């Protein structure tokens, strides 16, 4: 249980095991959450952060059981409110490393407002949104990311509302880091988790996750070996946006603000759209792409470092006030302004 201790003051050398709690994991057998949990636990030692300084906060839903399984500080809160709880925690304790674990229902339905605001404020938290396009914990109603016409218990004739794209939402909210990954691509998931955790500011990672009980193979297009090759676009900063089998590579070019799919062989390489993580505008265009007309991008849409976080600005204001006028003194405050003496 206890981590191997290093030099005094240094972060101990952890292993994945140090981050496994003693609680029985209670997700359904075969759930995509297991792979995510394992990847997160495996990534933790690489963060170089003492275990006691890490906090996982969640709302309600299958994904939100996550904190119980992490041997860190954890708080399983109420439906949709984890981003707000995390904001209060970061304002109180900016030095802590805070993760928010949420799902498509928790984060985009009941908690959509809080997700919007934690992102626009650029609170320094890492948000992992497990998107399985279904309500699992309440046993299979459609979610805000379910495709139009989704037949579920609550929509026997098909859902009438159109889905939201989590990454588009995050980008529109002004998130300074937005990425998408897949529960069945462990290596990619670990890379995204590491990069998100290293980001200072609000980092948002959509993890496409399989609910094998209520919405099995929702991401089948990206699981199946053959279709994956046809649809998966890996975003790489500074590299052209290309995908497809070696013999029939496809690429994207931008015509104005409209993306167009081309055969790589048909255009000069200089015409291909080169991915730029620091440009939120083109990231927003990318985030809207989806099969069948376009590829499905996986990777980092945007990564803008160096932007002030909400809590940093608050603390700076506090420090400025103290340095200009000294720390507060309540006895003096009570006597300030208009007072009068009796007796």
């Amino acid at each position, binding site marked *: 249980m*206890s981590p191997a201790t290093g030099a005094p003051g240094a972060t101990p050398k952890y292993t994945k095991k140090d981050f496994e*709690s003693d*609680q029985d994991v209670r997700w359904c057998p075969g759930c995509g959450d297991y792979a995510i949990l394992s990847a997160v636990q495996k990534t933790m030692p690489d963060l170089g952060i*003492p*275990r*006691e*300084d890490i*906090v996982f*906060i969640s709302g*309600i839903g299958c994904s939100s059981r996550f*904190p*119980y399984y*992490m*041997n*860190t*500080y*954890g*708080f*399983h*809160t*109420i*439906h949709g*409110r984890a981003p*707000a*709880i*995390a*904001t*209060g*925690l*970061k*304002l*109180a*304790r900016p*030095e*802590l490393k805070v993760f928010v674990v949420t799902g498509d229902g928790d984060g985009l339905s009941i908690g959509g*407002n*809080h997700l*919007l*605001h934690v992102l626009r404020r650029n609170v320094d938290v890492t948000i992992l949104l497990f998107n399985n396009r279904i309500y699992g914990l309440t046993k299979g109603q459609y979610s805000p990311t379910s495709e139009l016409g989704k037949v579920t218990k609550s929509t026997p004739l098909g859902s009438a509302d159109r889905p939201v794209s989590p990454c588009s939402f995050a980008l529109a909210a002004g998130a300074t880091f937005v990425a998408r990954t897949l529960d069945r691509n462990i290596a990619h998931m670990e890379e995204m988790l590491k990069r998100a955790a290293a980001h200072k500011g609000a980092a948002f990672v959509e993890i496409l996750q399989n609910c094998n009980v209520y919405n099995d193979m929702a991401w089948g297009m990206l699981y199946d070996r053959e279709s994956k090759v046809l649809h998966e676009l890996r975003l790489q900063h500074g590299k052209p946006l290309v995908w497809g089998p070696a013999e029939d590579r496809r690429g994207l070019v931008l015509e104005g603000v409209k993306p167009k799919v081309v055969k790589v062989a048909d255009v000069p390489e200089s015409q291909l759209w080169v991915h730029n993580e620091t440009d939120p505008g083109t990231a927003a265009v990318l985030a809207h792409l989806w099969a069948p007309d376009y590829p499905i991008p996986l990777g980092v849409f945007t990564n803008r470092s160096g932007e002030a976080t909400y809590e940093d600005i*608050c603390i700076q204001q*506090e420090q400025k*006030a*103290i340095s200009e*006028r*000294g*720390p*507060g*003194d*309540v*006895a003096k*405050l*009570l*006597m300030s*302004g*208009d*007072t*009068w*003496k*009796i*007796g």
Partner: protein
Amino acid sequence: MSDSVATTQTARKPRRTLTRAVIRFAGDSGDGMQVTGEQFTTEAAWAGNDISTLPNFPAEIRAPAGTLFGVSSFQLQFGSQRVYTPGDKLDALVVMNPAAFKVHLPDLKPGGILIVNPSAFDKRNLDKAGYASNPLEDPALGEKYRLHLVDMEGLTKKALEDMPLGAKEKDRCKNFFALGLVSWVYTRPLEPTLDAIKKRFAKRPEFVEANIRALKAGHAFGETAEMFAEHYGVEPAEMAPGTYRSMTGNRALAWGLLAAAERTQVPVVFGAYPITPASDILHELALHKRFRIRTFQAEDEIAAVAGAIGASFGGCIGVTASSGPGIALKGEGIGLAVTAELPLVIFDIQRGGPSTGLPTKTEQADLMQALYGRNSESPVVVMAPATPGDCFYIAYEAVRIAIKYMVPVMVLSDGYLANGSEPWLIPDVKTLPDIAVGFRTETEGFFPYLRDPATLARPWVRPGTPGLEHRIGGIEKQDVTGNISYDPENHDHMVRTRAEKVRRVGQEIPPLSINGPATGEVLVVGWGGTYGAITAAVEEAQAEGKAVASVHLRYLNPLPPDLGHILRQYRRVLVPEINSGQLVRVLRAEYLVDAVGFNRVRGLPLASQDIYEAINQMLEAKR
């Protein structure tokens, strides 16, 4: 300063001494009545009077001029004896326009001083107020009241005629003319107002001069005009010696938090969403970032309480504030703090409801919401301040209890306490009770729900403490270990434990102070902002030799341990509340006592005269 408004030396008019006076300034929202009232309050405070104030203003930010719903008023009672309320009926009323005249005249005592600005009584304004003819032309008016028609508009304009200001700017000074006049009528010192004008318009010297001229012109007018035959003095009140300041309830709540943060050295994180009448607490705290205060203007009421809970989990003092509608939204969050057993302070500045109700008016109808307004068995500590100044001590005490028992504490203030003010004896902060904060750091034998045997509080652990990593949450947990548990017996045990923890706060409650005989005919039981009205009514009955007493509850959950015994020492129990009978229901259920409510839900404080009559009715009914 220019002396263009000369003070003519005339024979001094006779001065009559009063023990108390109730005055109301009323006008259009744009007439500056709040400033006038606040300034007159400061003058009375300087003169050493005890004071109670009642600002009353429309919910609309810029209500259409001249309308009945756009009327804004400020009432105060000041006296040489203890003043408990802003007063029921008015000794003097200053009205700036027909709408204010219509709304407020019924509150003026027959024979009271009525100062009217007649130039505002033109056809347009009379129409807006719904008058077919000018009510000032009714000869009965001058017979019923001591009517003074003072052309404040014209006189102010005249006093400022050589000043390079626009007509509108000059007109805006007429409230200071009114203040000057009333200051003369009640012989209040002008010095604090002169200072305030200089401060208020520091960047516009021409406004300083204009307003001072208007003030002095009003004062001189009272002294010289033939219409005022006498004026009045109110001697200083006998008040405890010390340094005083004027204090409103909202500021007192904010400052109580500052004192708690200073004493504990633990920062307060205050999450709030703007809502009337609670927003001023956020504004006040945001001014004081040097005092270990971090304010979070959240995206909604839910995020506000959630942010506070996150801060408490992080080892800071999480506080949120709102009014009734916002508290309703926070309910689930408060329930989380109940089960997570985290310290949390919630201020509910009650207003008229339901729904949006009467945002700027006062009410006491959130008691049941505070006690029971969450799903399942979800007990929290509930406290209520009695006066604006008491809000300081209540806020501090709420933090102390929340930390000591690891429990949410709800404070029920109200719109009247929030905006009303009283002279407040400034305490020595060193004499405030200690607030013990003991963050757990010992790893040996640690469990998240290990309990202190005296308080049943679980340990408060700051994330960042090595070796104490643990998980808590909203799912029912096993006592001691904090592990998720669906065990029926454990749940029953935890429900009882959470209730017992709140019950044990009873050991913190001092014996109730009984105002009056220890046994008797009628006991009046009150809570919150009705303290003044109840005390005044009870003392009036006592002065007539009636066997009446009162107790005022600052703790509503748990109830004071000695309350049950006290209730049985009187033949009848009367419970005045600004709701349709909430505390009375609790008392009847808790103590099987035949308590009777006195209830008015008008958006206004209870009138002490009405309570006095209810006491008398109860005394007579018995016979």
